[in-house]
């Protein structure tokens, strides 16, 4: 008599019937709209940023150094511009990464862990960036740092 081997499951396939009833998610809805609107805004903000930093600087014979940043951040317009660019690009990128992790990491513990690390690291960087833009004092003297 031949013994039948138990078929190996090739893919996990959780049945939706076993899941709780679906419920509307305002959070997911918010991020769905945020990704599209911030994407549109970033096209303008990022292209403007690239134009100033890489085209205009060359055309006007300027140099990107501490004095250049000082002169730009002396105006509230450029501070708000850079602040918007920083916050939108950061949230857009981090939410994109969150979505990709959600798509590709199926193990629940691993997913929470990776998401946690992503949020902590990106949170620190975002706050540091915002603090610099908000608290930068244009009257500060240039200090020779390791990158200067």
């Amino acid at each position, binding site marked *: 008599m031949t013994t039948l081997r138990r078929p*190996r499951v090739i893919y996990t396939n959780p049945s939706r019937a076993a899941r709780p009833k679906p419920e509307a998610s305002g959070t997911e*809805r918010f991020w769905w709209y945020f990704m599209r609107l911030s994407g549109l805004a970033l096209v303008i903000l990022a292209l403007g940023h690239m134009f100033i930093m890489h085209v205009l600087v060359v055309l006007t014979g300027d140099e990107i150094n501490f004095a250049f940043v000082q002169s730009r951040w002396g105006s509230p317009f450029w501070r708000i511009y850079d602040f918007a660019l920083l916050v939108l690009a950061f949230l857009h990128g981090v939410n994109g990464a969150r979505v990709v992790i959600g*798509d590709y990491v199926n193990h629940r513990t691993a997913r929470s862990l990776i998401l946690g690390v992503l949020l902590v690291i990106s949170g620190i960087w975002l706050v540091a960036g915002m603090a610099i833009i908000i608290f930068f004092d244009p009257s500060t003297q240039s200090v020779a740092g390791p990158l200067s």
Partner: protein
Amino acid sequence: MDVQLRIRRFNPEADTEPHWEEYAVEAEPTDRVLDLLHQVKWYQDGTLTFRRSCAHGVCGSDAMLINGQNRLACEYLVKDAGTSITVEAIRGMTIVKDLLVDMEPFWDSYKQVMPFLVNDEIPADGKERRQSQADRERYEDTSRCILCAACTTSCPVFWSDQSYVGPAAIVNAHRFIVDSRDTAKEERLEIMADPDGVWRCRTTFNCVEACPRDIKITKAILEVTQEIGKAGIR
């Protein structure tokens, strides 16, 4: 013409992993890939297992991954497929045997969107629920779905996480959400606004390419998203 047919086979009673097997088949250019599968099953190897019913692109039973794209085996002709053809089971589903997959999770998602007209009111004339031509036109496209699962199983989001409701279920929800006679729109929109609902669509258009009925699936998904916004569901 001679066709070399490669089929990804899996026998749950003997194999631990699927493997490829090759068959030499003689075919007319106007033969369908389904005819080749029949030739193999009827004359070469009777153990080959696959699903098909009407064999004319209506029942939606024989969706398969043919030459790397989800298609109906009964609609794809040899003259278009070439002389070297690969056939696999649709992806993201548990393989029962060879090209046959367990469709139950697909039906669960489908059932969840309540794919039936909900209306307990008695029509004005007591007989018919009348609808303008423009209202009828709104769901013309999505009402043509044959539930073959070619779209859902071509979706990369579904491949990596089967908790996503999938394009087919959204298309069938759309069919009733935009139907002016239906009264359960809000309930369906609630289901569609779940974290595993429309928000997970990345608009990669795989579903649109795979659909044998040429349904504009991504358009339907976007329309459902708009309806969620209009209904103020949060």
